């Protein structure tokens, strides 16, 4: 007597659409990724162990080099016009914070006027950009 055996169903994860999915994700990343171009002077940031991550989106980026020259989004700017420029920028777009990238060897008398200049009528959070501790180059101790 012949017993008709039931057709065995093979269990397997269908992976036919994996390539399509990968391509779609690839297209997404290719269209949304952009290479970040760092404008401004070359700096060595100070190190800190208790820094917090802050997004650079909607932020104004200021650079202060070792000589004390100030740059607004890569363009040289006078410290005396800082408050005015910030007020104008706020009219154009939402400025959530100002990020200060200053060289570790910048003298304090070049930093202090920048902080004073940022004290507008409406306070804006300021972030002093740092490197995670241990990555900075130790400064040469003056004898």
């Amino acid at each position, binding site marked *: 007597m012949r017993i008709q055996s039931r057709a065995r169903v093979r269990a397997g994860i269908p992976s036919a659409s994996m*390539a399509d999915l990968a391509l779609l994700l690839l297209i997404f990343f290719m269209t949304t990724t952009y290479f970040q171009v760092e404008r401004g002077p070359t700096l060595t940031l100070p190190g800190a162990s208790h820094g917090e991550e802050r997004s650079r989106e909607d932020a104004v980026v200021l650079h202060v080099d070792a000589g004390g020259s100030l740059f607004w989004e890569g363009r040289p700017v006078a410290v005396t016009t800082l408050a005015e420029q910030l007020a104008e920028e706020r009219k154009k777009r939402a400025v959530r914070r100002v990020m200060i990238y200053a060289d*570790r060897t910048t003298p304090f*008398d070049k930093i202090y006027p920048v902080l004073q200049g940022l004290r507008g009528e409406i306070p804006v*959070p300021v*972030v002093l950009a740092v490197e995670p501790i241990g990555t900075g180059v130790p400064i040469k101790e003056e004898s």
Partner: protein
Amino acid sequence: MTERRRRVRLDRAGVNVRHSRLTEIQLTSTSDVAFLLLIYFLATAVFVSQLGLPLVLPPAGERPTTVSDSEVVRLVLDSEGNLTAGGEPLALAELAGWARERETEEAGRIYLLDVDAGCFYVHLVTALDALRSASVERISFRQGRSA
């Protein structure tokens, strides 16, 4: 034109039994390439963020407040980056522990950093970082005279 085409068809439909090679692009490895590119983008993509010490500056028109000496912890950073805390020399590396002790005794005091004009920015950041680690929230700094 029509005759010529017909002739061509006839020619093709003739005895030429040779297999014509299929001309098509090999797409088998496309998914592999796509996956590799995807992994590359996933591995290299970074969110645009920066590590920093956040500060809240007082508004421009705000009048200075008068506080008593007992509420203020005075710290002095000279042009060489040497720290003096409450009149006593203190290593910057020890500031966090020192401030933590003060905060345990009495929390909420104002730490006034008197920074010399010629002091390197790195020393200010180190001091601010140490105070942050000791959970000091009220920090004030001003520019001192250069030696």
